[in-house]
């Protein structure tokens, strides 16, 4: 497969996944903002979201004061912000368009109609239900896009690169969500004896579609330690770090080439480290440090994947 084709497929998945996860984060935040809380806490929560997607400085430079409306506008609808949901969906479609001949009809139809609908929608004065409706819509379009890939795409390298993009982006996003949320909810570190802010933890679980799974797995009250275990270590939890690493290892193995040996070693190492550890060991060393290290390794893998497969090889 052409490197450029693989590159477009990979980024098409990454941008779609990124838009979905950003919608998930903002949905939790807007929901959370409705609950009673202390002055200042709300601002900290929006700040956390901005810094999670690396946009706090850009936001401050432009708007200064934190305001819920402005943060949502900036992160969801602002076409001038390359990290907004709308920009991510535009980029997904740009990448799809460049390899339209490689996509199945259903894949193209979904990503194109998402984009067309986005052009027609107006985002002025979007509040309450309408705002939640928009975030739901973004999630749904992402589900459709992924569904069309899994349901209609030939199982060749193109499929592998699409899945690699999805898992890499999801690993990154889940780790960021966990890092930011836990730092806010348990500033002194997660221990087995934390008193949980039930609503907040439940919102965190819901943001990664994990609340029902949590109930099914633990059949018990919600604790930070178990949340961390579920979202980091459970391989049967679709958005967990372990599951993402497993998916990455599997699809990278399928596309292995002459220069990808080190990349495969690194993903294998990451995968087995998640497989053979325990949550108490992670918490003893500090969750924040663990997630920082994980994010660094995921970013390193992203660079290696680009070098090994996606950019013009110079020989």
């Amino acid at each position, binding site marked *: 497969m052409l490197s450029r*084709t693989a590159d477009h497929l990979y980024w098409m998945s990454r941008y779609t996944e990124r838009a979905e996860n950003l919608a998930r984060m903002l949905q939790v935040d807007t929901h959370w903002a409705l609950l009673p809380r202390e002055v200042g806490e709300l601002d900290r929560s929006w700040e956390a979201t901005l810094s999670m997607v690396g946009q706090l400085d850009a936001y401050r430079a432009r708007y200064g004061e934190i305001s819920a409306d402005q943060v949502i506008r900036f992160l969801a609808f602002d076409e001038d912000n390359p990290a907004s949901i709308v920009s991510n969906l535009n980029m997904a479609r740009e990448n799809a368009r460049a390899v339209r*001949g490689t996509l199945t009809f259903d894949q193209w139809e979904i990503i194109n109609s998402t984009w067309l609908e986005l052009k027609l929608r107006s985002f002025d004065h979007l509040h309450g239900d309408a705002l939640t409706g928009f975030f739901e819509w973004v999630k749904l379009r992402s589900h459709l896009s992924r569904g069309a890939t899994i349901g209609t795409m030939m199982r060749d390298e193109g499929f592998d690169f699409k899945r690699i993009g999805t898992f890499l982006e999801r690993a990154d996003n889940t780790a960021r969500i966990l890092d930011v949320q836990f730092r806010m909810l348990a500033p002194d570190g997660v221990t087995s004896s934390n008193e949980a802010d039930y609503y907040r933890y439940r919102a965190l679980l819901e943001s990664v579609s994990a609340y029902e799974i949590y109930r099914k797995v633990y059949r018990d009250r919600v604790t930070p330690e178990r949340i961390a275990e579920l979202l980091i270590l459970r391989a049967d939890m679709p958005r967990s770090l372990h599951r993402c690493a497993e998916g990455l290892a599997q699809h990278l193995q399928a*596309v292995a080439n002459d220069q990808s040996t080190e990349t495969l070693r690194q993903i294998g190492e990451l995968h087995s480290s998640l497989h053979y550890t325990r949550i108490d060991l992670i918490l003893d060393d500090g969750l924040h440090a663990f997630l920082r290290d994980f994010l660094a390794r995921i970013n390193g893998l992203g660079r290696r994947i680009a070098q090994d497969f996606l950019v013009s090889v110079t020989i």
Partner: protein
Amino acid sequence: MKPFSGSPLWRNMPMMHSSTATAATRKAAYNEMQDGRGQTRQHYRELRDWLGEMPNERLAQKRDDADTLFRRMGITFAVYGENAGAERLIPFDIVPRIITAVEWRRLSRGLTQRVKALNAFLSDIYHEQEILKAGRIPAEHVLCNVQYRPEMQDIEVPGDVYAHIAGVDVVRADEGEFFVLEDNLRVPSGVSYMLEDRNVMMRLFPELFARYAVEPIEHYPDILLDNLRSVAPAEVLEPTVVLLTPGAYNSAYFEHAFLAQQMGIELVEGKDLMVRDGFVFMLTTRGPQPVHVIYRRIDDDFLDPLAFRQDSALGVPGLLAAYRAGHVTIANAIGTGVADDKSIYPYVPEMIRFYLDEEPIINNVPTRILRNPNDLAYTLDRLSELVVKEVHGAGGYGMLIGPKASKEQLERFRGQIKANPDRYIAQPTLALSTCPTFVDEGIAPRHVDLRPFVLSGSDVHIVPGGLTRVALRKGSLVVNSSQGGGTKDTWVLETR
């Protein structure tokens, strides 16, 4: 900057000159369905009966169905300068155009003959130049032509084929006789519409195909691929063929993606290719893979920034060197434009006589070359009836449409022609034939042309038919899609 010229469908067609000729100044157009007494010709009778059974509302419904199919299949062309989402459909007319087996046999022989002569001409021009030495074509028309590529001199190309894919525009005039209007030998487009028009017709009107035995055309991509493989460098046993596109923003990108997909070959951009030690490679996820044949849809000027335009970001540095070394085949060859140039067109019948020792089976539109004193005098006499074209002009620039021109324009052109007669040719206004077409008023005759695609490799192949373009506006002779032109499925009947 226009990264690709060739002959996109929506370009101004040279025939638009005729659009102004009034009925009084020319003979009635040949009606392909009805003869002079209003009788339906034999091969259109089944179609007439079928149309008679169909109420207009049902035809309108079918036309909407066709539009939906085209949109769903993504058969659109991008419009430059408009919002990227504004991908337009070329209007499709649901009434097929029918050509009899006898008519097709003659046309097909004529096209084969013509393209063989054009390829022989290109080979000669880039080698011995016998035709110039024999004085059959003025040398300066060729050697001073901007389309003549000195880089091609004495290069051997596989099979001695230059124009692998030709889209020859033909029209029917007078009593239905075919004339060649233009030979497109650079990067002719439109074949995807020919194929999809058939596809849509078969889905919408399967019953009509039961009434007529229509020659199939669906195997065009197979023949094209065989044809491209047949011209691979001789030492390559399993050649890899790629299609080189300027990219997703090109107006004909749909066609590029469609053909690549149909042939099962990679659709590459310039940046996907590299040249190393005189060989061409494409960059894949498994490292560089050799490429042997490039079906390019990029103009000569943009192919190789080292050899041609340095500002081209679309091409591949070093490609010309690899080509000259015989390590890769480029289809169509570099420099074919010298054979389809307006200044060369009048000499194609002469090429047929010179290289094949045959008389042309299909004629040119009678063309007067104003460097000849007799032709000049004739033209100056009848300037208001004729179309005068500047030989190096393109896209309708430097053209006089006699019947439409004002007195001042006529006089100004008269002066220009007198000053530089070498620069001009003149042609009569043509009455293009008409075919029944479904328009607002129901079924009515509209003017059409035809672009068959002639494939030359180890042999010459033409799938029976071509792309019929139709001027949907009443009385209009402009088949150009940007000005109300559409397309039709073209049926060549099997001999029964």
